[in-house]
Every structure is written in C-alpha cells, then in structure tokens.
C-alpha cells in the first residue's frame, strides 16, 4: 500500500501512465460529447413549462455539478502536500484551480442565460447563486495566492490550507436549495417511469453529458498537469532524455 502510494506520487510514473490513458480518455470524451450534444439539441422533447430552454440544462447541470468537485480535489491534494510533501499532489492542485474557475464561470454564465427568460432575471442574490459566486471568487483567490507568494513551497502550503477551508462552501452550495428558500430549484430526482417527472428521455442524455464533461475535466487536468511536470522536473534525467528523443 505505501509502496503503491509513493509510486503514485512519482511524476515520472504519472507522466508515463497518463500518456497511455490520454488517447482512450479523449476518444471516450469525444464520442460521448457528440452523442450527448446531438441528443440534447435534436431529440429531447421540449419541456411542458420551459419549452426548448430545457436544452440549456444539458450544459448547465454537468458544469455546475462538476465544478463542485474542484475544492474537494484540491483539498485532498493539499492535505497530501502538507502531510506527505508529495510533489505530484501540488502539481494537480495548481492546475486544478484555474480549470475550476472556468468550470464555475461557465455554470454561472449558462445559468444566467437560462434564467434571463425563464425566471425573468439574469441574477438574484439567493443562496445557490451567491454561494456559487463565492466559489468562483475563492478559486480566483487560490490562483492569486499562488502567484503572489514567491516561495513555491510556502505558496503550495497556503493554497492547500485555503482549499481545505473552501470545501465548506461546497456543502453550502449543495444544500443551499434545501436549507433556505431560493429562486433556484432543488436538484431533481430521476424516474424510470415514462409518465413521471424526469423520465428517461430527459435524464439519459443528461447522464451522457455529465460523463462527457467529467472526461473533459479529466483530460484537461491531465494535459495541464503533464505540462507542469515537464516544467518542474526539467532538470531530471528522464525529462532530459524525453526531450532529447523528441
């Protein structure tokens, strides 16, 4: 177990393994994304209340739900950095922050465009929207904290702490619609029956889009982490050999 753990922490090992996985992940992502988008745009029946704006859900929900994964991911990586001082964990944490800010921004933007006609407003300071905006600013905070501190080691530690603290906001976002009354609707439940709310014709394409966007998140994270490895490990023997062979 400990052997496996320390092996996993080795940038070289991660670089080689992720290189093998990337084509498969990218292929799966492209396939699911094409199927998901075509399904959502052409085949999903218009909602009885919202008409064709329901198609916005197939972008908004995947991005919104996956943007909740960033703080827990950065917190786990941060704890590993603080306790075991594993290099790879900090590289993942560093590349996850800007990606998370983009995901959160897209969730906010798509939700805003959806709400502008359906709710009658682009923005309202309700529990869900406000806590999501807070997550965006927290992520911007993590990014600026890292660039503000010159000492890379101190920056890694400070970001790790902020990421652990920021996890609290994830619970606030998740349960805001249940704890308080908000304009934002709560999460829907899926039904297997064709004649109930949220039947398979509504949620099957949603699940496809969620998996596709998850794969997109993993692929982008791996791509940027590999760049980070090449930069930070550029003096090591194996990176020099790799570049020489290229």
């Amino acid at each position, binding site marked *: 177990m400990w052997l496996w753990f320390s092996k996993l922490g080795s940038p070289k090992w991660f670089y080689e393994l992720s290189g093998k996985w990337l084509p498969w992940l990218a292929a799966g992502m492209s396939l699911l994304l094409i199927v998901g988008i075509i399904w959502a745009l052409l085949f999903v029946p218009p*909602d009885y209340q*919202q008409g064709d704006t*329901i198609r916005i859900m197939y972008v908004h929900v995947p991005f919104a739900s996956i943007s909740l994964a960033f703080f827990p991911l950065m917190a786990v990586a941060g704890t590993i950095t603080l306790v075991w001082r594993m290099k790879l964990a900090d590289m993942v944490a560093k590349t996850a922050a800007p990606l998370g800010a983009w995901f959160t921004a897209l969730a906010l933007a798509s939700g805003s465009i959806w709400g502008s006609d359906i709710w009658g407003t682009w923005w309202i300071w309700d*529990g869900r929207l406000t806590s999501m905006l807070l997550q965006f600013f927290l992520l911007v905070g993590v990014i600026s904290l890292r660039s503000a501190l010159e000492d890379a080691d101190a920056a890694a530690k400070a970001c790790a702490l902020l990421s652990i603290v920021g996890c609290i906001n994830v619970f*606030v976002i998740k349960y805001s619609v249940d704890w308080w009354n908000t304009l934002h609707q709560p999460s829907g439940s899926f039904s297997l029956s*064709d004649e109930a709310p949220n039947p398979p014709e509504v949620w099957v394409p949603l699940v496809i889009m969620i998996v596709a966007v998850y794969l997109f998140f993993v692929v982008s994270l791996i791509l940027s982490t590999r760049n980070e490895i090449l930069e930070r490990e550029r003096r090591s023997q194996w990176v020099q050999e790799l570049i020489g062979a290229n």
Partner: protein
Amino acid sequence: MKAHRQKKLTIILFVAAGLTVSVGLILFAMSQNINLFYTPTQVAEGEVTIGQQIRIGGMVKEGSVVSANDSLQVRFETTDFIHAVPIEYEGILPDLFREGQGIVAEGTVDAAGVFHASRVLAKHDENYMSQEVKAALDAAGVNTETHPSLVAPES
C-alpha cells in the same frame, strides 16, 4: 505513518472541523436573512413591516389573475395553501407566469395587506416533462402539478 506526519494531519483535521462548525453556526444564525423570500403566511401573520422592501414567494392562485385591458396592470393572489396575499403589479411578466405557477415578487406591503410588486420572477420546479406526457396525464386526470418548495425551512 511517522509521528510528525500524524501530528500534522491531526492539526489539519481539527482546523477543518472547527471552521466547519463555526461556519455552520453562522449560517444557522443568519438563516432568516439568507432566505430569499417571505411566505404568504408570514406576511399575513404580520411578520413584515409595512412599507419595507421585501420579497414574497408563493403560487399564483387558480382563477385569481385579473389583467387590465388597456395597460400592463395585473392583479392576482399568491398563496402557500394556508394564506393568500393579493398582489398588484404593472409591468412585463416572465414567460413562465401563469395560474398555478410558483413566483417570487419584490415590493412592499401596504396597510390593507396588499402587496405592491415592482418585479415578478417565476420560480420553476425541478421536474421536467414533455408537452405530450403532460397533456396525456392531464387528460387522464392525474395530478402532476408539483409545487416548488414554498414553505420556509423551519428555523
């Protein structure tokens, strides 16, 4: 695990737990301010000061919508099925506005208990259905009308 690592991990866990509890308590204490709107019951029972800018959330009562012929003036009642509050509004309503729809209105209550709205927003629920299924269920007399959460969480 080495002793100093265990110590570090314990400190991190304690700090995280402490912060979670304190944030939880703050949110709990502030929950009335975080709530986006008052319910018609809260307004009817006089929890709201007259003239104060507030939001009210409820369902548009069936058969209560009266709109003027020559202007955008509209009158309707909003209800949480316990109390109903009359609302007066002049302006453009959101696309989803109709009887039986959840709404959130911004404005003030007057001495007579009438709510003068400056803005009306639609609150929709998390249930999505195709128009055909909805029509079929309505024809069969199945009650599919699901109401967005109207009752303020107990706090």
